[in-house]
């Protein structure tokens, strides 16, 4: 335990008190022991509003140590409000090293993306989850959904997918796409695009999910089977993009659409900013890349 001094306000290391961290760690251990199962925990009030990642922050605060290196992303980006403020929060209350490079990080807290660079053993990915219950919109009763999980009654999940096909001709769910974890629990992978679902399967990294408002923690241990639900005649598919990233020309990555003007001009750029910048530094150049922003500093290889 490190107590910071020298400022008017002093915090316990990583903001939460030790009893709270102990309670959350116990919930995390239980969650790891039962992959995909939602463990209730006594979520604390955090100095940010619900919906800003209070669950993820509590999980991160409970597992972070002085030797850790933290990366925080929001929709793949390191430089958006949510990412910047959470990163600053942990710099202040835990005084840990921070980074934007996926491979240097030991803990990555994420809102709705999994980094493009494959994660490795020893890394922990912490998700911020708004609604942990995958069956919620079909079955409003919590008592009933718990029973359905307990008895493995997951027919209802397919009703949702059936509705998609009946209405749109294909499975139109593009984010928060339900998965079956370790052949037992159906889980909501938080609102990540379904593009990222295959990355969860047999991932060498530990994946932790925290929902602060709903007071649930769940987990996927490393090397766990994660299968996206589908129909035999409508198999699971990830999104594909017609053009590469306009900045770094990357293909096979998740792209964000950016509107450029009011005449229909648009560009598609990497949602993962770290990945995009790294490729730019390597000299990859897309359609709309700045002429010599990076090229001048580091010549193309």
């Amino acid at each position, binding site marked *: 335990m490190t107590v910071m001094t020298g400022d008017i306000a002093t915090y316990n290391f990583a903001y939460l008190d030790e009893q709270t961290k102990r309670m959350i760690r116990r919930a995390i251990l239980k969650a790891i022991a039962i992959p995909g199962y939602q463990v209730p925990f006594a979520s604390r009030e955090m100095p940010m509003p619900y919906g800003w990642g209070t669950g993820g922050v509590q999980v991160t605060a409970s597992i972070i140590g002085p030797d850790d290196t933290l990366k925080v992303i929001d929709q793949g980006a390191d430089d958006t409000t949510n990412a910047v403020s959470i990163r600053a929060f942990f710099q202040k209350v835990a005084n840990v090293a921070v980074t934007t490079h996926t491979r240097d990080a030991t803990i990555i807290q994420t809102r709705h993306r999994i980094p493009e660079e494959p994660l490795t053993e020893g890394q922990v990915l912490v998700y911020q989850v708004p609604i942990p219950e995958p069956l919620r919109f*079909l079955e409003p009763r919590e008592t009933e959904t718990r*029973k359905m999980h307990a*008895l493995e*009654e997951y*027919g*209802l999940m*397919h*009703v*949702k997918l*059936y*509705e998609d*096909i*009946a*209405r749109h001709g294909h499975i139109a769910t593009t984010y928060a796409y339900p998965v079956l974890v370790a052949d037992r629990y159906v889980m909501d992978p938080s609102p990540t695009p379904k593009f990222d679902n295959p990355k969860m399967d047999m991932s060498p990294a530990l994946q932790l999910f925290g929902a602060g408002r709903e007071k649930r923690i769940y987990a996927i241990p490393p090397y766990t089977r994660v299968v996206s639900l*589908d*129909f*035999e*005649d*409508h198999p699971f598919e990830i999104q594909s993009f017609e053009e590469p990233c306009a900045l770094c020309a990357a293909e096979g990555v998740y792209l964000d659409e950016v509107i450029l003007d009011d005449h229909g001009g648009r560009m598609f750029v990497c949602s993962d900013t770290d990945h995009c910048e790294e490729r730019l530094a390597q000299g990859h150049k897309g359609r709309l890349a700045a002429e010599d922003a990076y090229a001048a500093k580091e010549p193309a290889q």
Partner: protein
Amino acid sequence: MSSLFEDAAPLLSVDGLTKFYGPRIGCRDVSFDVYPGEVVAIVGESGSGKTTLLNCISTRLEPSSGTVGYRMRDGKTRDLYRMSEAERRLLMRTDWGFVHQNPADGLRMTVSAGANVGERLMAVGERHYGRIRETATGWLERVEIAEDRIDDQPRAFSGGMRQRLQIARNLVTGPRLVFMDEPTGGLDVSVQARLLDLLRGLVADLGLAAIVVTHDLAVARLLSHRMIVMKGGDVVEAGLTDRVLDDPQAPYTQLLVSSILQV
């Protein structure tokens, strides 16, 4: 008790079923058997314990005492309240059906008619969209709902259509026993007549056993082979439907039969 189906083993046997709500009686010491393919009506006035009885039999409400035995598909009779909850729930969505008085209780109002019918299939592991849809279309046709309504939500359906959809949703897994709680309640008479006609046809075609709770003696007359008359939680009379209605023995049944308005 005499029966049309004396030689077969009963599908469901209720023995000494009693339900107390605190000091009040829901139903007291009810015993009867239901044979495969037989329709039993439970009639009585409001508050006579018929819905309590139905809920106790269908495992929706735990009785205070008594047993309910059900002959499973493997031929063994098992006590419903000694089965695990998982087994009971599996039974409810495969081998049984439950038709509610208010279709909104039995349907998912926010998903399409096709998904409503297909839900049970998906619950027992069907994972082929094309086949689910084909089965759903077939069932909608059987209950006289136009095929082009398959993607409409039940919210857009009339009361009669909702009730027919609820019936299709229950029958899609080929159940052997269907519970119905006032299936024609809240429908106007011409729609009632068509629904009864449909039910009678389906029950005969599929060889279903059914337990129908109703306060409407005409429904009992049209649908059921046997009936049980209840009052104040007790069974006052039981027997073949025609016998009970044409030659009521108990004073209460006589009162009930004579209170039907003759038009």
